[in-house]
């Protein structure tokens, strides 16, 4: 295409499974609209990007405690409502499978395949004690200025 693409951005602040699913469905939809899509992950949203295995790295006790208390990856997130101590996510995953809906890890994979840019906020990574090695490969790392640069050019900007 000769003209520059439309842009869409999403800020994923939440680390709730349902909200992350919504964010990735919108991101994949926008990519299907041929938009250049960027998702910025900040605060609890960063947990969506964590690898599911324990990555050995040097951390202070507080960072270690944060690391243990936060969900390790997209498959471990809880629901914003009706979590029931982890039973809720199991139920919704079952229902999603029944309806042939993609799981969150599959939606993330699809987003990558469609060229959705995923940007991790470095300031909140520091706050939560998350290091690059703990997050998925192929991410970009940036701050608020990079987000605003993209958002100013985009017509669809969501905060989830």
């Amino acid at each position, binding site marked *: 295409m000769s003209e520059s693409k439309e842009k869409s951005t999403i800020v994923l602040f939440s680390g709730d499974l349902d909200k992350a699913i919504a964010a990735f*469905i919108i991101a994949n939809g926008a990519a*299907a609209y*041929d938009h250049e899509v960027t998702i910025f992950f900040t605060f609890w949203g960063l947990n969506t990007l964590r690898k599911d295995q324990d990555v050995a790295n040097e951390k202070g006790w507080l960072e270690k405690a944060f690391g243990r208390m936060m969900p390790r990856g997209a498959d471990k997130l809880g629901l914003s409502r009706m979590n029931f101590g982890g039973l809720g996510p199991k139920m919704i995953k079952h229902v999603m499978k029944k309806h042939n809906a993609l799981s969150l890890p599959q939606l993330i994979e699809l987003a990558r395949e469609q060229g959705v840019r995923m940007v991790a906020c470095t300031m909140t990574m520091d706050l939560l004690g998350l290091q690059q090695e703990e997050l998925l490969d192929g991410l970009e790392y940036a701050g608020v200025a990079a987000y605003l640069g993209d958002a100013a050019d985009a017509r669809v900007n969501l905060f989830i």
Partner: protein
Amino acid sequence: MADLIVDAKGLACPMPIVKAKKGMDSLQTGQLMKLQTTDKGSMKDFQAWVNQSKHELVESHEVNGVFTFIVKKG
């Protein structure tokens, strides 16, 4: 007849539209794609999607819960 047939029956949002996009990417301008879906929101979805693109919705109809769309690549 269609140059490409995409079967998105049984797939949930956002897969039909993602498959449609991939299908259109593989076609040349003027070629036709036939797409079938069963997702209940499909009619509105595809009308909106085609409106925002350079493609043309040649035909759309629903029979027994199966939506069929013919899209011409623009």
